[in-house]
């Protein structure tokens, strides 16, 4: 006895299989189409593979037991990622509409899911493109030798280096001061940074050029943006493996610690990473899939894309950690050389008498003879593992750690340019999906007049997003971005994904869905898909959501700030959010999440009000044609009731 929620009128809203076949043959309709399968696959791969694969997965992998992290990651990939991906592809291909259209079709009360997708896509687009603007800024600055983040600038009266830079490091200074010009707290806006505005404009400009005509233009752009990252990763792998210490980094990354598997945080982080990595619930994938031909094998596509995504994560982690290993070894060598030099200078020993190999014995013997002098020297402890586990993720990894590693390589401008082009392509291809998730629903909601051409619609959207994105370009912009990232792009997506599964399986009907897949790809989905769609994946989503929600609500939320006046400088300082931020957080996370039930409630109220006061009753014309029209309507409603009853078994 399968559970199915009542869904009257579904037959009227969707195209029947015959109509779909007819559409396929006739090639009628003004819906855009992919030029070839490769474009579709590259676009989906580009959307799924993003910056998170490069800077979130390696950190999670290393901090949750290295090689052992693969186990929860791969398990959750199979039970959570692939089923959700297949579901979105299939429903998009079947109903041939963007996210708003799909949910409106499945049930008008589920329109909220589409609206939530639109809101989340919009909010994520805003800050994601700012990250691309940052990448472009670094890219623009890479065409000089020496790179500007390799050394501290000299202060105004030429007596020494700038103090903020001297106390921290050149890369930190370049990132926090010369790029972001961060203020010390989120309340201080710090004004708009003109150079960042230029970079933001160029980021939105490039995006506009690629999205100007929808998939007609993005389909061409993805040939470059989706393939170039793999080329660059390979080049970096080859370069990295020839550097000293890279193999240590890779070994450190993959050394398994099976004890981590007992820690529930590991599983939850793995689940969250799989979910966010697939860019599910944005609506973009449904949209892309709706441009396919009806008989496209979406099952195969889902499996292939999932495998590519997982492979890319692991490949990128290897490359990143080979370079991190190199950097850690350099730092370790520098630390040790500094200590050795201090010892040589203090005791006037000949050069070369203390080397890396005999450092420990030499230190020990000197300590026994002159312990007080040794203790006064304040020698640094140099530990390779602590340098390796300086686990950084996110923008810190890309703009601080990796750029520092690049400055230590010969021909640094070349490596810098390559690395930033890779980040740019990764980000841009994900933005294509985000923008698709914004533009198509806006068109479905008929926000723009029909006479407007596609170019104008995408232009207006990009312009609005660029203007709103100026929030992230002010002095406190980095803190706002972290805020948006934590709240707009996390909880609402989980709710949307959960609603999607419930909607398709229980509102649309798993039986009807199975029939559709039989029609589209030629065979019914097997027991694996049935089990995951109906039970396993929703439970996993629910578990992740409950965990996330409880951590956010119970823990006090704070942000980390770059404050030159703090005592622990250069360590970032934890600061609590001001009280008005909670309103913003509620808006960011609340509006998309609440629009799912909210739209249903709103619609229900509207229906109820309409039934009470039938406004402007239809004019009863005493004519034969009108009577026939009424008869037709009655017949139709009877037919739909009958077909609904069929599925009640």
């Amino acid at each position, binding site marked *: 006895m399968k559970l199915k929620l009542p869904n009257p009128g579904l037959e009227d809203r969707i195209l029947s299989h015959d109509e779909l076949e007819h559409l396929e043959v006739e090639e009628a309709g003004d819906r855009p189409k992919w030029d070839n399968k490769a474009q579709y696959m590259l676009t989906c791969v580009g959307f799924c593979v993003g910056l998170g694969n490069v800077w979130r997965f390696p950190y999670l992998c290393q901090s949750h037991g290295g090689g052992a992290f693969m186990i929860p990651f791969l398990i959750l990939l199979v039970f959570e990622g692939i089923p959700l991906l297949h579901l979105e592809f299939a429903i998009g291909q079947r109903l041939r509409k963007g996210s708003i259209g799909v949910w409106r079709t499945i049930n008008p009360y589920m329109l909220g899911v589409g609206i939530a997708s639109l809101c989340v896509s919009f909010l994520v687009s805003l800050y994601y493109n700012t990250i691309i603007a940052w990448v472009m800024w670094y890219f*623009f600055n890479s065409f000089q030798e020496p790179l500007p983040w390799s050394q501290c600038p000299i202060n105004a009266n030429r007596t020494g280096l700038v103090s903020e830079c001297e106390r921290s490091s050149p890369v930190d200074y370049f990132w926090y001061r010369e790029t972001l010009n961060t203020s010390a707290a989120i309340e201080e806006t710090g004004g708009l940074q003109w150079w960042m505005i230029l970079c933001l404009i160029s980021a939105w400009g*490039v995006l506009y050029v690629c999205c100007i005509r929808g998939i007609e*233009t993005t389909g061409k752009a993805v040939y470059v943006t989706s393939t170039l990252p793999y080329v660059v990763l390979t080049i970096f792998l080859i370069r990295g493996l020839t550097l000293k210490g890279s193999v240590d980094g890779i070994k450190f990354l993959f050394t398994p610690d099976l004890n981590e598997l007992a820690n529930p945080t590991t599983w939850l982080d793995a689940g969250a990473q799989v979910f966010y990595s697939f860019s599910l619930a944005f609506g973009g994938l449904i949209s892309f899939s709706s441009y396919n031909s009806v008989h496209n094998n979406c099952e195969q596509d889902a499996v292939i894309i999932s495998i590519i995504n997982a492979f890319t994560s692991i490949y990128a982690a290897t490359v990143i950690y080979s370079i991190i290993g190199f950097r850690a070894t350099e730092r370790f060598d520098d630390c040790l050389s500094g200590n050795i030099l201090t010892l040589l200078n203090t005791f006037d020993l000949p050069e070369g008498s203390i080397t890396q190999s005999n450092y420990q014995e030499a230190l020990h013997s000197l300590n026994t003879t002159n312990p007080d002098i040794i203790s006064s020297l304040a020698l640094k402890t140099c530990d390779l593992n602590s340098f390796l586990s300086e686990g950084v993720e996110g923008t810190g990894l890309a703009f601080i750690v990796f750029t520092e590693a690049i400055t230590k390589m010969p021909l640094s401008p070349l490596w810098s340019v390559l690395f930033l082009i890779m980040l740019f392509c990764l980000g841009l291809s994900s933005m294509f999906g985000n923008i698709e998730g914004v533009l198509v629903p806006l068109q479905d909601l008929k926000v723009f007049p029909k006479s407007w051409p596609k170019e104008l619609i995408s232009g207006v959207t990009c312009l609005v997003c660029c203007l709103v994105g100026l929030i992230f370009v002010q002095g406190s912009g980095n803190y706002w971005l972290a805020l948006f990232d934590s709240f707009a792009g996390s909880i609402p997506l989980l709710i949307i994904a959960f609603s999607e599964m419930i909607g398709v399986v229980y509102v649309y009907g798993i039986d009807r869905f199975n029939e559709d897949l039989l029609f589209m790809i030629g065979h019914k989905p097997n027991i694996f898909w049935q089990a995951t769609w109906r039970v396993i994946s929703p439970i996993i989503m629910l578990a992740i959501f409950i965990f996330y929600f409880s951590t956010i609500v119970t823990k006090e939320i704070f942000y980390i700030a770059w404050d030159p006046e703090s005592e622990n400088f250069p360590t970032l300082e934890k600061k609590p959010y001001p009280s008005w931020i909670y309103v913003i957080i509620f808006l960011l996370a609340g509006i998309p999440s609440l629009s799912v039930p909210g739209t249903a409630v709103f619609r229900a109220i509207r229906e109820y009000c309409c039934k009470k006061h039938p406004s402007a009753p239809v004019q009863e014309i005493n004519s034969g044609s009108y009577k026939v029209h009424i008869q037709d309507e009655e017949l139709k409603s009877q037919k739909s009731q009958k077909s609904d009853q069929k599925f009640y078994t």
Partner: protein
Amino acid sequence: MLAGVLLLIFLPPLVAKDLCKDSQDGFKVRLSIKTALGDDAYEWNESEMFLFRSTLAYAMRKQTKQDTYNITNILVCNDTQRVSFVFVVTSPDDPDQLIPKEQIEQAVRQNKHRINNAFLLSDMTLEFVGIPPTLAAPIIYDTEPWLIVFGVVIGAVAVGIVALLMSTVSKKRRAKEKAAGLSEEDEGIVKENGTALSGLGGKEGVYNQTFSNDNRFTEL
């Protein structure tokens, strides 16, 4: 007599050593030859020390613009295996008087580049303890390099947008011309036949009922 003569002979070096050891006007120098040159490192010996003393004398000459400074004016002591030692500079006019620290510092600062090059070392590997190295002047660009790259990228974006918009406009214009062209052809045929339908021409072509899909009159 003999004792007096012996004292006279040995006194200057003893006094010199005392001048060097006890003075406040001396600077400690540290050389890290092996770090700088690796396998090409030279041995530190008396000849190298001779070179050092002569370089310093040269620096003092340049700074004071007096050609009287000589190698005998540079006294060295506290030689260690590290290759570090202390030196003082005596005045050429009076061998017992030392040149003050500030003057020596100035001389070294101005000629550090030449002193470094004489020994194939750098500011890091030839240290004068107490004289921090002068920082290199920052490079001042006429146009910041990043603005140039930004200009290139924005230019490419603008060209791309204009090209794409133009192609859309020209596509639409071609479609319009095609539709207008068809209508002209139709009108020509009608005119040849001279039927009454020519009056229905209008701007967008002739409405040919034979191919009409409109069956609103036949539904019932």
